[in-house]
Structures are given as C-alpha cells and as structure tokens.
C-alpha cells in the first residue's frame, strides 16, 4: 500500500474478552438492531437503508421527522464486510503517513477534542512564611479562550512531539472574526499550515466541505494525489446515543463518503445515562450504533475508507458528567477494540482523558491508567491522548508535552520482544566475554543498544534533589520546542489556498 509511514508501536494485543464473548456481543448488537432498531432523523439515510432491505416506517409520535429502522443481520454483516481493512491516512511529509490495518495491532497516538479553553502555565516563586530564605516555584495557571492563533501554536508544538502520530484539532477557535461559515476552513488551515502530520477534524458545516477538500487537494498536489495521500480526514458522530441517527451529521456522512476521504464513524454513549452502565449492555449498544454508521458509509459507496470510532464513557454517579479515568472506561474501550478487530475495521479509540483540571498527580494517574491500557489493546488509532484536562474541556500545551513523554515510555514498554536465535547467540557470546574479563561488567556491551534507541532514557523531567520540578522542567523543554522553526506550507501553496478558499483569516498566513 505504502512503504513509508510512522512506526507507531506494534503490540501483542491484550484481549479482555474471549472469542465466545465477542460473538455474544456481536449477536447482542444485531439483536438490538433488529428490535428495537434505531430512530433515524435523516430521510436520505432511512431510504437508503430501506432500499437495501431494512424495515423502515415513519415514527408518527416524533415531533421532528423520524423513521424507525430495523435491520436484518445480513444487511449489517454484508455492508460491514465491505469496509476496507487497511487504509492510509496521509500527511504533508510521507514519513508521517499512517498505515492502519485491522489485522495489524500497530498503535498510533494523537490529540483530540475541540476544547474551548487553552490552559497557559507559568512558574511563580513563593517565599516560605517560616523562613524567608526558602523559596519554591509553583505552577500557576491561566485560562485563555481558544482561538486560531492558539490552534496554530498547538499544531506547531504537536509537530515537534515525537510520539504524537496524528493531529485532531484540540482547540475550538473562537476569534471574533470566526463564524460558523468560516470555522472549518480556518481550523483546517491553522492545523495544516503548522503540522506535517495527519490532520483530522469534524465538520462544523457541510457547506464548507468542498473548500476543505480543495485546500487539501492544493496541499497534496491534486485530486488523485489527495486520494493516495489523504492529508485530511473527518470525524462524524452520526449517532446521538441511544440509537438515534442525527439529521445533519448523516448529511455530512453522505458528503464526506462521496468525497472519497477517510471518515471516522464515532459514537460516544455514556454508561449510566445514554447507555447501560453494565459492560455487556454498553458495548452491545455502542457496537450496534457504530455498525449502523459503517453500514451507512458502505451503502453510500462500497469500499469507502472508514474507522470504527468507539468513545464509550461512564457517567459519574454524583453529577452524571463523563468519567474517563476509571476501570470501566478501559473495559468498555478494550471490548470495542476487540469487536473492531472481529469486523476487520481499523479502530479509532480513546485514552488520556481525566477529571483533573491542571497538570499534576491526578492527571498523571488518570492518563497513565488509560494510555497504557489502551495501547496494550492494540487499537490502531488512539485519540484524546495529548494535552486534555478537565475531561475534554481544556487543552494545556505543557500537559501535551508531559503526555508525549508518558506515551513515549509506553510505546517503548510495549515494543515487540527482541528474542530470537541471532540475539540469543550474541548474548551468549557477551556473557562469555564478560565473565572472562577482570571486572565482569556488562556496561561496554550496553552502548550499541543504547545508541540504537533500544534502551530507554530516564524520565525526561526528573529532578534529582528533594523536590518535584516536573512541570517546571516540562515548561523549559516546551520553550525549546516552541523556539524551533515551524514547518509551514511553502509560500506558493499558501498563496494559492488564500486565492481559492474564501474566509481564511489573513493573520494565519505565515511568511
């Protein structure tokens, strides 16, 4: 398919469910789709399902136009089987492309959400009330409203984070000049002009899809080059849980699929409110929703590139907000990864979200808990993994830097074991050599592995004294990363985009 792509990490998947349990969940999902079926608020989708054998009738009790749809299992199975098992997500730099293969548990991590808040961090010095000679530096935080300049900054920083494999715009742009009409072209341009990795986002309005696609064509070098190297792709949350297809998102699915660009069919029910909190019920329902979404894409255009997008979360039972950093989150999500593998569709999964509002111990706990576990699952495409705080409401750049370090270590930890006959032969030779030497020290034989990157480095933000300077050290490191020049689109490409695509803020042009 392609020879050059990001390495990610190839893992041996940890599977929570037995194959029998996977089959039970699959049957349960199909049973839900047979009865009670779904509530479809988009006529075109309802008619398309009907044309392919679904039972469709108008729901007369509904205030908005709504069609009830029940699916024979065969329709879902046949359509899902047509979704490609392998797809490429392109990038401005060929080495940054991603190869997603449902049969290969190669894990990529990226950013996500569209947070309204950008959390800026600064260190401030405080003097002890007991001893004025004692001073400590403490991180102080300031909330800024997301805007296009900050999204550009996020993209530029994320280009420098070596363990971030793809970029989903993490920040909502709320400049005074931004309207629903020019939101899409600005968020895609701010991203694409500052990062050489894959760029993905949802569409704010269908009206601007053609402009976004044209922008991507200019960057990729034409219509055909864009199909071969789709530098952008889209996310559509076509289901409002439980089991309701949203009208305008369904229209976006039609248009995106017709454009030929890759699409994530994402669903995010909340266990305890919009889905059962019990694992079997939650997973059966979200799987049913995603299967219908994938079916829709394949009925629109057979073989269209699609990702199985699972974002099941649990409700906090004290306030019914989403609860991400908890055991059930991992359980739901890993089950979905296994189901995606069962259907042979690459999986868009989730990790790195929590309730913590600032970087620190709580954030570390919540993120590590899901980052590591979900990487072990072998999900091909893990979003939300960088910089998010306060669930998905805040993007904090220094948190993204901290997450980068954490994800790097996880990727290292999950690398394939290097145990083979040639390696064993080498090691036996080394043991003999060292035992014949005067000091019986293996250090000399560590260097090749060390310089090859086989041996991990200590935690990048460690402090050796009796203090914790992780955030301060991460801020220093971020400053260095941000001082490096950004890899903007060349001037001619920027000029052509500005000439052809209306509505992009002039301030986003980089010289």
């Amino acid at each position, binding site marked *: 398919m392609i020879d050059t792509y990001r390495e990610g990490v190839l893992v041996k998947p940890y599977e929570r469910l037995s194959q029998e349990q996977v089959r039970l969940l699959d049957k349960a999902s199909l049973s839900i789709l047979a009865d009670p079926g779904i509530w479809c608020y988009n006529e075109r989708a309802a008619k398309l399902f009907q044309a392919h054998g679904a039972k469709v009738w108008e729901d007369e009790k509904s205030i908005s136009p709504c069609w009830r749809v029940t699916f024979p299992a065969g329709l879902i199975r046949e359509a899902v089987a047509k979704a490609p098992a392998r797809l490429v997500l392109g990038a401005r730099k060929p080495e940054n492309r991603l190869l997603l293969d449902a049969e290969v548990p190669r894990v990529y991590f990226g950013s996500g959400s569209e947070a309204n808040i950008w959390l800026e961090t600064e260190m401030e010095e405080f003097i002890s009330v007991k001893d004025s000679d004692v001073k400590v530096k403490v991180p102080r935080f300031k909330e800024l409203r997301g805007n296009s300049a900050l999204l550009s900054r996020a993209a530029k920083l994320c280009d420098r984070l070596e363990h971030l494999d793809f970029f989903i715009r993490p920040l909502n742009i709320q400049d005074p000049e931004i309207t629903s009409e020019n939101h899409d072209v600005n968020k895609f341009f701010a991203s694409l002009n500052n990062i050489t990795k894959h760029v993905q986002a949802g569409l704010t309005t269908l009206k601007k899809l053609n402009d976004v696609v044209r922008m991507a064509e200019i960057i990729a070098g034409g219509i055909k080059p864009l199909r071969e190297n789709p530098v952008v792709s889209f996310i559509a949350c076509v289901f409002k849980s439980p089991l309701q297809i949203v009208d305008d998102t369904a229209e976006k699915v039609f248009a995106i699929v017709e454009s030929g660009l890759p699409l994530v069919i994402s669903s995010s029910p909340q266990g305890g409110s919009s889905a059962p909190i019990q694992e079997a019920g939650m997973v059966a329902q979200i799987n049913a929703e995603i299967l219908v979404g994938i079916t829709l894409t394949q009925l629109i255009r057979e073989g269209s590139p699609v990702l199985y997008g699972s974002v099941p979360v649990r409700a906090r039972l004290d306030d019914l907000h989403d609860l991400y950093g908890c055991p059930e989150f991992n359980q739901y999500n890993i089950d979905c990864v296994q189901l995606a593998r069962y259907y042979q569709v690459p999986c868009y999964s989730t990790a790195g979200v929590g309730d913590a509002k600032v970087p620190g111990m709580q954030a570390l706990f919540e993120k590590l808990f899901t980052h590591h576990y979900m990487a072990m699952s072998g999900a091909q495409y893990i979003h939300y993994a960088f910089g998010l705080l306060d669930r998905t409401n805040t993007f904090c750049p220094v948190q993204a830097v901290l997450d980068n370090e954490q994800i790097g270590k996880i990727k290292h930890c999950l690398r394939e074991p290097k145990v083979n006959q040639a390696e064993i032969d080498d090691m036996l030779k080394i043991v003999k050599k060292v035992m014949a030497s*005067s*000091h*019986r*020290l293996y*250090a*000399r*034989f*560590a*260097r*090749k592995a*060390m*310089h090859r990157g086989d041996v991990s480095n200590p935690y990048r933000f460690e402090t050796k004294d009796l203090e914790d300077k992780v955030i301060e050290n991460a801020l220093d490191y971020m400053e260095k990363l941000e001082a490096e020049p950004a890899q903007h689109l060349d001037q001619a490409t920027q000029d052509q985009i500005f000439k052809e695509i209306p509505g992009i803020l002039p301030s986003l042009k980089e010289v």
Partner: protein
Amino acid sequence: MDKQELLKTLAFNVVQGRVEAEDEGFDEGLEDQPAVTELVEQAIEQGIDPKEIVLEALTKSMEEVGEKFERAEYLIPDMLASAECVGVAMDILSPHLMKAGVKSKGTFVIATVAGDLHDIGKNIVAIMLKGAGYQIIDLGTDVSADRIIGAVKENEAPFIGLSALLTTTMRVMAEVVRKLEQEGLRDQVKVLIGGAPTSAAFAQEIGADAYCKDAFDAIDILKTTAV
C-alpha cells in the same frame, strides 16, 4: 600502516571502545578489523616509542571521549568502553614503559569493604582510573581492613579507594582509616571513599580525605590530590 596512521587508527579504536578485533564498536562495519589490542601490539612491533603511543593515541583519544561525554553524545557505557581499551593498552605497554623509565600516575588500591559484595561502582572506578593512567590493585569484594592495609604496604600505594553499598558495611571504612593511623601510614596515603550510602559528611566524620560521588569525581579529585 605508517606511524601516524597507526596512532590515528589506535585513537579511533579507543573512541570506538573496541578492545579486540571481534568487537563491533560504536559505528557499523568495524567488526573483524584490528582493534586496540592488535594495534598496540603492532605499534610495539614497529618500534614506536611507548610514550608516544600513550600521549599521541591513548591520552588524546580519552580527551576526545571526555569531550563527547561533556556534550552528552557519550554516556557512561561509552566512557567505560574507551577506558577499558586504554586499560588493556596499558597492560600491554607497561613492561615497555617501565623499561623506558616511565612511571604510572600512582598505585591505587581499591576494594569493596568487608561484609559487602557489591562491586559495580568499584569496578567502574577501577576501569576509569586505569584508563586515566593509574596502576590499579583491585582487591575485589568483602575485603578486610587488614588486607587493605597489607596491600598498601606491599605496593607502597599512595591511594586507597573504598566502596560500600550497605549502610551496615560503610562503618568498615572508618576501621581502615583507624588502622592506617595505628600503622603510622595515614600521612602517606590518601583515602577516597564512595558508594550509595556515603557522603562528604561521612567522609569527614571518619577522617577520609575525600568523598567521590562517581568515577569522574574520583579522577578530578586525584588530579588535585598530592600525597
């Protein structure tokens, strides 16, 4: 190979950390080419002055390795590999240097003290000091104070290095210092101590001359220490 080329190749191999031909070194594709052992032997066979080998190849290359370490291009295993190369070279050159009347920088008796079997740190210090030109008398692990004093006397060593990893064995270091005093040797010997539980304060408390936090510290301290 002419003299200059041979010395240059020798220096290169020290930087590469290749003791003998079968070693792979740091860069790719060096395996089976002559390394430090073979090149030093060849240099002697060609009649190159051993002092010149030490100064032009070994010392210069270790300086380069030190600079790489300072720039964080090299880490401890790289330094050790190069130091081990110099140690091997010095073993081959020693008789020739003695014949030429050249002395080492001094004899350094090193040991992990009685009751303690940990020797990684001690070995690293021994390798690095040997690479820096000291003659090393390594007594191994679990070494009694009496044996250490005996070795100092036998070798007329002006330096002792004592290592311990356990809080329960570090006290043996004090015993060594006391015995040196009892034997009337204290003024003739500098005592350096090191190991995880030790500190500058502990060195001062037991009357040692210096605490070394690592092998590099030991080399630096020795440079400025006169007996």
